[in-house]
Every structure is written in C-alpha cells, then in structure tokens.
C-alpha cells in the first residue's frame, strides 16, 4: 500500500511547514478571539438563531394569546352560565312573588281607600269568579262569619265592583255592576245629572233615565249618587264611553273603572251607609289602568 504523502508527492518538510502554518494560524486565531472567546461563539449562535428565535417568540406569543383568549372565553362562558342560572332563579322567585306582590299592591291600595272613606269597611278576598257564565258573579271568602248581609256595596281601589247578592256561612256572592240585573244609582260628574246604571256585560253599563236636555261628554266621570243607599255619594263608577240621543232619554254607555275580571281583594261597605262621604276618586280624565306584573 502506497502512503498518501508519497502519492501526493509531499515531502516531510512540506508537512512540517503545513503544521507550522496551522500552528501559527491556530494561535493567531485564538489570540484574536480576545479576552472572552465564548462571546464570539455566543454572538455567532445568537445571530444564526435569530430567525428561529423570532419565529419561536411569535409562535409562543400567538399560543399565549390564544391560551389567554380560550381562558377568557371559558371564564365568560362560566360567567354567562352563572348569570343564566341566577337569572332563572330570579325569574322563578319573581314568578313566585308576583301574585303576592300584586296582592300586596292591591292591599296597599285598599288600605289607602279604607283610610279615605270614613266608614267601617271590611275586606274580603275573591276566591272564584263565575262572571263568564249567565248571571255569574264573584265569590268571596267571607260570609256570615264576618257579619255580611246582602245588598252591601263592594268596592275595589279602582271603583265600585257591585253589591252582595247572597251570603252564606263562609262565602258570599257578589253581583257585579256590569251584570244585566244589576243597578246602581249614579250621577254624572259635570252635569250632575242622575240616573240608574244597568249592566251590559264585559265591563260596560248604561245609564238610564238621563234627560235629552242634559249635556254629557265622552270621558266624563260617573260617580255614585248615594240614592240607592248601597253606595255613598261620590264613589267612582267609570267613564262615559258613548253618548247618543234617544227618543226620551240619552243613551249613555259607561266603561266601568274597576277591573272586574282581575280584582282579588275588595272592601265591603256597611249596610245602608250614609249618603254623603268624601269622594276619594274624583278625577276629571280617565286614568290608565295600572299594569300588573307577573300573573
């Protein structure tokens, strides 16, 4: 086998010179690297790794932002779920409290009405209504146990409801003012003309026996006149809805102000009340019916 040095025609002196050159260059390079040779390699590696570091940094920033976004989204979802649960609970509580709240509001109105009428009033709760049926009425939860008697006037905060029709031991039936067989002595607020209110059903009634000579305006308030000795003078009945000339008398249709289908608590006037009391409901214009929340 021929040695490589012979094949390359390199003499021993050439190898020595090559070794010397490498030795000198190695030492020179080592010296020129300076007091901290590691920093050159660090700088070189840092320069070479700059693109990779940039990409890795951006990749990590993207992942971090994505992670934070996902975390925030999960927090928002949890928060939304919690709020939905809380909202459902509040709605359930509100639904539970709505009847009691409405009843409480009605009781407050009744209490205010009771304080305004200087009579001994009794309260009762409407437990059932048969108004949709023929000759139907409202069933109260009190009867003889409260000392009730037929023909006592029944009031709601918005106006009169009717009169007691029949009374038994623990319940009583109210004949509403819009019943065809009901009649209430009324008068018009401005003209002071008197008449008799007869029911037409569905919360409407007509005033009979008002002369053609009277001037009646639509929207005029209709009050009790006290002549029937069931209601004292001045309690609000309703508002004039239609006025038409008749042959002998005016045809006056009245919208009853009391919500007969939604009344829950009523006040009972004493039997044969005095004719004059302080009217609590005197208003010149129709009052919008109060909204009831929940049920």
């Amino acid at each position, binding site marked *: 086998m021929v040695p490589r040095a012979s094949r390359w025609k390199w003499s021993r002196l050439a190898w020595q010179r090559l070794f010397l050159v490498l030795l000198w260059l190695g*030492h020179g390079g080592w010296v020129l690297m300076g007091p901290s040779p590691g920093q050159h390699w660090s700088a070189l590696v840092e320069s070479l790794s700059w693109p990779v570091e940039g990409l890795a940094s951006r990749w990590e920033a993207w992942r971090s932002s994505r992670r934070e976004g996902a975390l925030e989204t999960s927090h928002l979802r949890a928060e939304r779920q919690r709020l939905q649960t809380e909202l459902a609970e509040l709605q359930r509580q509100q639904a539970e409290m709505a009847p009691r709240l409405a009843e409480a509001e009605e009781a407050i109105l009744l209490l205010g009405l009771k304080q305004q009428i200087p009579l001994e009033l009794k309260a009762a709760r409407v437990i059932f209504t048969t108004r949709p049926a023929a000759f139907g009425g409202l069933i109260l939860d009190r009867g003889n146990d409260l000392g009730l008697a037929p023909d006592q006037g029944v009031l709601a905060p918005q106006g009169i409801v009717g009169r007691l029709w029949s009374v038994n031991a623990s319940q009583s039936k109210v004949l509403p003012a819009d019943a065809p067989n009901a009649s209430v002595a009324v008068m018009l607020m401005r003209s002071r003309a008197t008449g008799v209110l007869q029911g037409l059903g569905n919360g409407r009634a007509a005033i009979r026996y008002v002369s053609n000579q009277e001037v009646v305006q639509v929207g005029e308030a209709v009050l009790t006149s006290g002549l029937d000795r069931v209601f004292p003078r001045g309690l609000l009945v309703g508002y004039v809805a239609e006025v038409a000339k008749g042959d002998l008398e005016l045809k006056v249709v009245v919208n009853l102000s009391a919500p007969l289908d939604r009344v829950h608590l009523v006040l009972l006037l004493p039997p044969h009340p005095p004719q004059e009391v302080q009217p609590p409901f005197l208003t010149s214009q129709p009052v919008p019916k109060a909204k009831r929340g929940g049920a």
Partner: protein
Amino acid sequence: MRIPVPTLMRQNLLCAAALGLVTLSSPFPRLQLVVHAFLVLALAPRQGSPLVGALWAVAAGWCLEGSLRLYPHLGGTAWADLTMVLLAGWMAGRWPLEGMKGWLQRLGVFSLLLALLTHGAVRLAAGPHALGWTWLWPVLTVPIWGWLGWRLLYGQSASWRP
C-alpha cells in the same frame, strides 16, 4: 567563515533545560522573562528545520503565561514566541551568523521585537494592560545571555571574535 550549526540533540537538551528554568523561575518574573527570551531567541531558532524550535517556543510561551500570569485569556505570549522563532530561524538561514557581534546585535533587535510583539499579542488576547518596564530586563541583559547562548551553541566550533 561560516559557523557550523549545533547538533539537534544539543540544541534540544539546551532548550529542555531552559524550559525547566522558565518553569522554576516563576517566583522571579524578571529572571523568568530573561530565561524565556534566552530560550525563544537564542536556543530555539534553527536554520532549515523550524518545527522543533517552534514547538519549544510555543512551550516556553505557554509555560510563561501559565506560571504566574493571570491573564483572562492566555495564548498571546505563545503566539508572539512562535512568530519570533520562525522569524529568527528564517533570518538565520537567510543571513548566516558570522560572529558574536552580529549575534548580539541580532538578539538585541529580536528582544525588542519580542517585547513589542508579546505586548501586542497579549493585548489582543487578554485586553488592555500596562506595559511597565519589565520588558527592559531581557533587552538590557542581551550581552549576558547572548554570550552564554553563543558559548553553549557555538562555543566548541567557533572562536571568540567580537
């Protein structure tokens, strides 16, 4: 008259002894510097075969820096020694010695060059540092170690011809 070159064995033995002295004289920096210059400039250069002298010079430089020189980055002295020994060997072949006077003159110039080159190389390798006056010791003692080197290398073949 051409002065004969000493034998390689004699030169290597002298270099080994000088390298030992460089190591042993580390508690005495001025003396160590003189012995180091003696080894690098007088004993190691050899006409025609620079590799052996270069190795002795590199060893002297590393021994010098590795003894008491607490530089942050070693290697400057070895590089300077290597450069000077190659220059001295090349000059010995290019302009052969003719007497001790030329030998001393050449050593004086070489010692100055060695001091400057060492300072520059160490400055490159280890950073800025004070030059001081220690470098003057090898220069000022050139007649002593130059005469000694002449006697040890060429004493048997050359006569005293100042």
